[in-house]
């Protein structure tokens, strides 16, 4: 039933335009690596904790956010540079990252994600003993 409805919507006139408009935005990201692992900072203005989804499995990191902010009733749009209400961005991860220990933090619309390196692949300092 649901599928039929979806098909019907898609085949209606102007569907291409409608589809384009639902493309999620690709939020800008900074990605850096230090001895502990990978850190990402992603600009997602308008996203609160409840509208955010961060998923890290072995191979991929998926970040999705819904833009939610209060708008007065009966508002008419005069101008819009931001034309979507969703963000989505994916990254491919590699095996030396310990995704189980991923930490995410959202503050003022900036998402910070830390994925540590597995303990066994971290550089170890080897002490040299003088004999």
């Amino acid at each position, binding site marked *: 039933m649901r599928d039929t409805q979806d098909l019907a919507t898609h085949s209606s006139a102007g569907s291409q335009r409608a589809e384009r408009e639902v493309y999620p935005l*690709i939020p800008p990201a900074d990605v850096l690596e230090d001895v502990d692992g990978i850190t990402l900072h992603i600009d997602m203005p308008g996203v609160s904790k409840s509208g955010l989804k961060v998923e890290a499995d072995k191979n991929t990191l998926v970040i999705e956010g819904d833009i939610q902010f209060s708008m007065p009733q009966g508002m008419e749009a005069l*101008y819009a540079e931001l034309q979507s209400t969703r963000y989505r961005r994916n990254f491919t991860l590699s095996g030396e990252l310990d995704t189980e220990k991923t930490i995410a933090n959202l503050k003022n619309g900036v998402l910070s994600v830390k994925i540590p390196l597995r303990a066994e692949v971290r550089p170890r300092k080897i002490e040299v003993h003088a004999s």
Partner: protein
Amino acid sequence: MFGNATAFETLFDELRRMEQGVEQMYGRSAPGIRSVARGTFPPANIGATENEVHVYLFAPGFDAKSFSISVQRNVLTVAGQRVLPIDEKATYFRQERFDGEFRRIVTLPEDVDPERVEAKYRDGVLQIKVGRREVAKPRQIQVA
């Protein structure tokens, strides 16, 4: 570390980003005299109700106190600064986020009242509300 170029999804993201840029460049054939090129930071959305004009600036990671907002006649100016800390010991693979000072100038409808401006900052969105003057009601003219 990140297999960026190999992931198809990411490749399409890049294409879409480019496509959006092109669209934005040619989207408006006769822009307003004070309008700016798309892709300017921070992006702005403007909406209006009968009594107010609402401006939304998508400027994440700022200290609310660092914004400077002024309205002169119907021109709104917003300035701010975001300095991203650089970790000297880290390797950067991507640096796409805005860093530095911005100043955005937005032309509002003619009937805004510069005396009635309110601003708040939530989840990285700066929301500015400007009151509108009461529109004069059409006058009925009696024919004698």
